[in-house]
């Protein structure tokens, strides 16, 4: 199996799907000639032409809104939001329109579209190029929210997202784009939207994460293994709909739980997972459910030392694991 990075996996998924299905097109800022700011769509305009790899004007509201309308009319659009931080002008189109059309039309209309958005920090992007938006959108029924962490999952999940008859927000952690490499089969495969994945089985405690933080958790789990603590690391992968059974199953076995994300803590996705564990695994718990998140500041500060302090580190995660293990 060839080893590729996460960015390449995403490009392959788009490319292979577009080759098979003429209904698919990509719409976003500078996705054509320039190949996108991260170069995800590089080369695709030469293959599919400007009617399918479309450079949009600078206007997120109409990028998403036009894709919603097109999706209702027998096409399969992929909207690219250049950075997740810029999704706010399209909030209305995503939350009020895309997520609610199927329900409010009593099933008459579907919105088979994907919104791709690079998210997350650690790249010195400051306040408006570092944000985590998953909790905001995972709050919205009718929308699916996916956040892969590995090239294999990214490719398989994106293909599923493109085929999905529902609107899917597909979050790509920008720091993982080139950093994270992994083996991806050459044959056509899918990773279904929905199931979480136990990336590292363990017995003493369960850790739940997604995106870049999954890799930090794996690193911390490795360190704990050397100390004789067996940590189970669960990649949530899909945040809505959430795989509650896998989460609860894991905690019932290990009796301890930690949730890690870089989004700020208050109202973050970790709160939802912690609440589910409290409701469904209370009797098995041997320790308080812990959460790690970024500090509750308005957005990522620019200065490097402050950014380093903002991003949860493998050391911080390991410290929380030790605290749990001590119970």
């Amino acid at each position: 199996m060839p080893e590729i990075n996460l960015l390449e996996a995403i490009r392959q998924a788009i490319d292979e799907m577009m080759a098979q299905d003429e209904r698919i097109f990509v719409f976003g800022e500078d996705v054509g000639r320039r190949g996108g700011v991260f170069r995800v769509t590089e080369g695709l305009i030469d293959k599919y032409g400007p009617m399918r790899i479309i450079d949009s004007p600078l206007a997120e509201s109409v990028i998403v809104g036009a894709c919603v309308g097109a999706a209702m009319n027998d096409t399969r659009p992929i909207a690219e939001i250049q950075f997740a931080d810029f999704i706010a002008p399209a909030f209305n189109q995503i939350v009020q329109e895309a997520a609610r059309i199927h329900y409010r039309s009593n099933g008459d209309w579907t919105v088979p579209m994907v919104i791709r958005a690079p998210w997350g920090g650690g790249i010195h992007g400051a306040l408006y190029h570092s944000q985590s938006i998953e909790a905001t959108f995972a709050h919205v029924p009718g929308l699916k929210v996916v956040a892969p962490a590995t090239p294999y999952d990214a490719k398989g999940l994106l293909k599923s997202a493109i085929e999905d008859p529902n609107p899917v927000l597909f979050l790509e952690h920008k720091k993982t784009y080139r950093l994270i490499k992994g083996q991806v089969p050459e044959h056509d495969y899918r990773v279904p939207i929905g199931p979480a994945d136990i990336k590292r089985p363990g017995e003493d405690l369960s850790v739940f994460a997604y995106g870049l933080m999954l890799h930090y958790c794996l690193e911390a789990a490795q360190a704990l293994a050397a100390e004789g603590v067996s940590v189970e690391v669960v990649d949530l992968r899909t945040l809505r709909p959430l795989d509650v059974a896998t989460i609860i199953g894991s905690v019932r076995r290990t009796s301890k739980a930690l949730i890690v994300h870089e989004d700020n803590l208050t109202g973050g996705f970790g709160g939802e997972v912690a609440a589910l564990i409290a409701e469904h695994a209370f009797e098995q718990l041997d320790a308080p459910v812990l959460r790690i998140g970024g500090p509750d500041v308005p957005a990522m500060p620019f200065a490097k030392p402050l950014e380093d302090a903002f991003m949860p580190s493998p050391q911080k995660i390991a410290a929380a694991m030790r605290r749990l293990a001590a119970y």
Partner: protein
Amino acid sequence: MAKVEDTQRSALERENPDDLRHYYYQMLLLRRFEERTSEMYVKAKIGGYCHLNLGEEATIVGLMAALTPDDYIFTNYREHGYIIARGVPPGPVMAELFGKETGVSGGRGGSMHLFDAKTHFMGGYAIVGGQVPLAVGAAYALKYQGKPGVVVAQMGDGTTNIGAFYESLNLAKLWNLPVLFFIVNNGYGMGTSVEMGSSEPDLWKKGASFRIHGERIDGTDVLAVRDACRRLRARAEQEGEPAILDVVSFRFRGHSVIDADRYRDPEFVRSGREKHDPVRNFAALLHDHDIVDDDWLKAMTDRVEKEVQEAIDFANASPDPRFEDMYVNMYATPVPNIPGPEDAIREVKINRGEL
């Protein structure tokens, strides 16, 4: 570059030579500041996203020459030159780009988020179009309070395609507000040309259906920019007539320091820089009219070199922001139940594996 039909400005002979020399000095300062900024980026003294004003010096200095201390300025993220030409010393600006405590935003904002209350510099905005409605609101506040002055909403050409721009135009005229929509038309929004992104590429016409007057101005001619801004500023302040200024210039480099600019033909870029260099062209103009000589030009180069070097030295010598201050300035007044300095220090220690 978009075509500018006829450049209107007063004859050089009627100008105060000291003003002309000052404009040149300012333009050269911005040029050198940005060249050294780019160098500091390559040396990893500056990180993240960083957008330069190279090629836009006359646009910036011309605008600032027309404004008064009463006026307010909102800009996009390509704003190093604006804050300096507005009167903030280069040192604290460079320090902000370095992410230092002594920076104009305390190291929290970086290149795209420069602020200065004293000079009414209302900030750089990195969400495209974010600044435009705010400028309209600030103009309403001036009108409501009966205060003098106008508000400038600076933006790029690409920004005129986002909805917030049109909502702002409507309100500006509906309420007759003292606001200038100052569009820096450098031909491109990232890799998207004006023609690719705007069904009406004559951006000054975009106010037509709002009954807002618009003009196209040669943004490489500092006097043309100044004169147009003065005229439209006076109308805005005295008659409550908003205006669109479509100020045409040439973007010397890629969108940001790290943009390889592969979507523009290298020959187009080379000849554009050759033809539309506002700094060099202005030096030649002043020289031809015997307003400056070679010695003066040389002295200016040395002066600017020194000032920018001092700014870099200042930034280098400045401390990083303190972790303790992570939660400072979240709210305008003390607020219960939010973390404080001890929490910040504890978090950092845990994060570093020290606790």
